[in-house]
């Protein structure tokens, strides 16, 4: 069994988010028996969720579409091993996460040693000073600005941030997926948030400057 087929671990947060979908169980059984219409229905039911997840993790439309394609091809091949021990959407979610991680490894992003291999260069690394109080971030963050900032994070930071803060995985789960220590996962998440803070502050400075110029 490959990592992409690893059964979903118990995660109440994820199960809560993934209630059964009407007609899904029948479609799964029919698709297991080779019914192309049923597989098409599974694609229709889950394409948005899978694609959005890929997009969050990769931050790139083209790659996200490629990985969506891979995820469903993998699903087609492995559907027979789905035994309904977790919600199908949870199983597919984890399958997709694992495929994206394998894709990144294949590309040369060594997630085994996050700290050494995907730490950004010194000038890109989040500054370690506290900075001064910023009233913009203290109250509210513009969603679009934050999404843009997440998209510009180095891949390793973005991966841990998306898995933990957006997807709700625990550090121990992330550590298992990325084959690193929980301490490393915590550290990467912290650095990702620090970097986001910097990016958002820079963004608010730019907006302020533009506003003053106007």
């Amino acid at each position: 069994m490959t990592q992409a087929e690893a059964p979903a671990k118990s995660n109440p947060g994820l199960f809560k988010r993934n209630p059964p979908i009407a007609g899904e169980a029948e479609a799964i059984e029919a698709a297991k028996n080779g019914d192309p219409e049923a597989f098409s229905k599974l694609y229709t039911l889950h394409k948005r969720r899978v694609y959005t997840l890929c997009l969050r993790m990769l931050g790139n439309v083209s790659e996200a579409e490629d990985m969506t394609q891979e995820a469903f091809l993998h699903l087609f091949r492995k559907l027979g091993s789905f035994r309904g021990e977790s919600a199908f959407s949870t199983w597919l979610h984890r399958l997709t996460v694992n495929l994206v991680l394998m894709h990144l490894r294949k590309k040369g992003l060594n997630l085994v040693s996050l700290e050494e291999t995907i730490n950004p260069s010194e000038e890109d690394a989040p500054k370690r000073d506290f900075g001064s109080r910023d009233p913009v971030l203290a109250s509210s963050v513009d969603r679009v600005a934050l999404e843009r900032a997440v998209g510009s994070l180095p891949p390793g930071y973005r991966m841990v941030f998306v898995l933990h803060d957006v997807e709700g995985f625990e550090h121990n789960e992330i550590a298992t997926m990325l084959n690193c220590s929980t301490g490393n996962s915590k550290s990467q998440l912290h650095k990702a948030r620090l970097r986001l803070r910097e990016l958002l502050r820079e963004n608010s400075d730019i907006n302020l400057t533009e506003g003053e110029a106007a």
Partner: protein
Amino acid sequence: MALPEDINFDTLRPEEFERYLPDLFANGNGKVSQDPRLSKFLGEHPDCAALVSDLETIAAHARSLFKVSVDPSDKVWQNIQSKLQEGNTLEDEDEDLLPRSKQAELT
């Protein structure tokens, strides 16, 4: 680094706080600002309090990120259909994507 059990929160210095912050966030369900052990320290160090506030804001807003989900383009399904018709579902490729040790660990 793991959070030491014998931290003296009354004499905590900003640089120590910064070092412990990843664990403080992880251990306190992300609510460092509500940790009673830190109330005095954060009150005395407004820059640290601002940092905590900002990081909590970022984490809180992350939950609502990407809520606007979008469909992949039609070509994704076309490609899937095409691959399925060719009988090419990458059966031979994905087994080698992970180190063997990792594959064994996850089976």
